[in-house]
């Protein structure tokens, strides 16, 4: 068992355990902060998959952007929500959650079943890419690669997403603007 493997197991354990905690936690604010941990652990997993740039983006956008946004949302929606939400009236193991649990469990079984049936490491295209050396190595500098790709092959999505973000900005700003413009 290599160091990478051990790291992988540790990271995945942290990620899954913290995610599980988010799922069962009754305390809202705590669960948001635990979600930080999940995201960091996932970033670690991305690094293990040799996607440094994605990992960095994950931390910058998710942890720096999304979670902060979520916290802001809490603040903006006023203290009383927080108070209300601090004491959720439903426990996770309540009977009303049973259907959801059942469905998710069934889905999980299906997914695991099909995943295990698939020999992911020996798929045709993976063998091909190993043969043609079309895989990312530990030493390779992928950031430059990503930069070139963004400007060539993925130019269209890159440009489109800028418009998309602009639109989302306009819309979100409109929605959260105070009404008393008069």
């Amino acid at each position: 068992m290599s160091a990478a493997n051990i790291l992988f197991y540790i990271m995945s354990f942290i990620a899954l355990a913290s995610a599980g905690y988010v799922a069962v936690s009754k305390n809202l604010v705590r669960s948001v902060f635990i979600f930080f941990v999940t995201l960091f652990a996932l970033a670690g997993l991305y690094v293990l998959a040799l996607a440094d740039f994605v990992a960095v983006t994950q931390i910058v956008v998710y942890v720096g952007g999304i979670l902060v946004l979520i916290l802001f949302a809490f603040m903006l929606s006023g203290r009383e929500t927080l108070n209300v939400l601090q004491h959720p009236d439903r426990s996770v193991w309540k009977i009303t959650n049973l259907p959801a649990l059942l469905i998710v469990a069934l889905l999980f079984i299906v997914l695991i079943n099909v995943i295990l049936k698939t020999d992911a490491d020996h798929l045709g295209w993976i063998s091909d890419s190993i043969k043609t050396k079309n895989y990312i190595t530990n030493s390779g500098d992928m950031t430059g690669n990503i930069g070139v790709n963004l400007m060539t092959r993925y130019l269209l999505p890159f440009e489109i997403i800028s418009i998309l973000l602009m639109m989302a900005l306009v819309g979100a700003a409109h929605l959260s603007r105070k009404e008393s413009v008069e």
Partner: protein
Amino acid sequence: MNDLLPSLSVQLSNTIGSLPYFNPEIYLAVLFLLVLVTDLIFGRNSAWICRIVAVGGLFIILFKDLQQIGLLQQNSGSVFLFSNMLRLYRTAVSFKLIIDFFAIILIIYFGLDKRLKNHAKGLSDLYTIVIASILGLHLMIMAVDLLSVYLAIEMVSLASYLLAAYRSENGFSAEAGLKYVLFGAVASAVMLYGISLLYSLTGSLNYFDGNLVPGLIAANPAIVSVAIILVLVGIGFKLSFIPMHFWVPDVYQGAPTPVTAYLSTLPKIAAFALLINFLTPFIFNVKWIVFDFRLFLSVLGIITMIAGNFAAVWQKNIKRILAYSSIGHTGFSLMAVATFTGQGVSALTFYLAVYAFANIGVLMLASYFADVSGAEDLDGYKGLGLKYPLAGVCFVIILISLTGLPVSAGFNGKLLVFSSVYAVYEQNHNLWLLLLLVTGALTTVVSLFYYIKIPLYLFLKKQEAEIQFEGTESGKWLLIISAILAVIVLLLGVFPNYLVGIL
């Protein structure tokens, strides 16, 4: 330094070569910026300027779409753009024409609805969002790469969430937005997971000429069908077929009426183009046996038709009726998709265009009645037809078209779909196609039950309490436009060739 450098020049020339085929979208992007800047410069009073800019720009884009027809004819009818991100072909141009045309009508309509007009924060942001969403719709129509598909769907979805929640001072609008965004975000997450599985199995995102289809054929069928269904969840969310339809009635009811008109037509039409694009490589690969799309679509179509139409019978709110009926129409359109023939696709475009005409018209009239009398439920419609005969007659004509009775465009649409399905059935005697035909005919009859209810209330029931009626300037325009739509629906019923010729 980089192993991509050798291919750089090829990539760049590919990108530059794609630009001429990307004219309408470039103009759209420019238009988006123009509207945005207008909004910023003119501030609070910019709504009508934005509207003029948007409509004018869309006319130019419509013209650019038409130019693409000629451009395509020089290039064997199908071009791949931007490293196979997009595929431009004749049907895509037809879809774009439909989208842009109705977008113009809708943008005019947005400014005429009284409630939307009274929105305190103004409408200029709305136009910005709509223009961006039209760009997304264009991409949806042409996308052949899972990345561009996902991006386009997200773009349209985001715009739709914003539009649904646009009247932020109204509780219903906010609620509709919340339901829409939660449902949509989950659907898109599920779809993304499906895409990630497809990518895992094939290492390719492009389903037209990449390794995707062959890779899937080689992989384990169980996981392939799981992944494909997960992807179809995302597409189904836009199409709103069963069981991805749950958001439809609530959102259609809660959203501002013009937005309902938008949601029920444009994204749906574009999603059909996307679905066709997505299915094509699978259908025409003879080795593809993992997943029977025809069976899948037929079952979905049948269930969707039945559920949508049957549930609509028991509704009281006019927008809910139309919401369920639009689910029913989705089922009917799936029938045309299940043919997998050129005839089926052309029948589909005709049907969708006609549906858009009728649905926008009907919602305009709903807006009109809501404006003049505040009526939103069937009970409120009692006797309104006698008070407003022109609006009532237009309503009836458009409903006839939605039902598919002759002589109306809707009848021709249904006839085209039926005949295209039958043509396929005649060749392969597929039981499911027959069932589709039967269900289509039966649900058409059922649809009559609820469509006929509206004229019944409009003309044949009497209003118990006198209510205050008021006429408005914008109401007049609404009436004029919907009358024009009604006339078009009738004309297309008599001369369907004109529309078929364009599409």
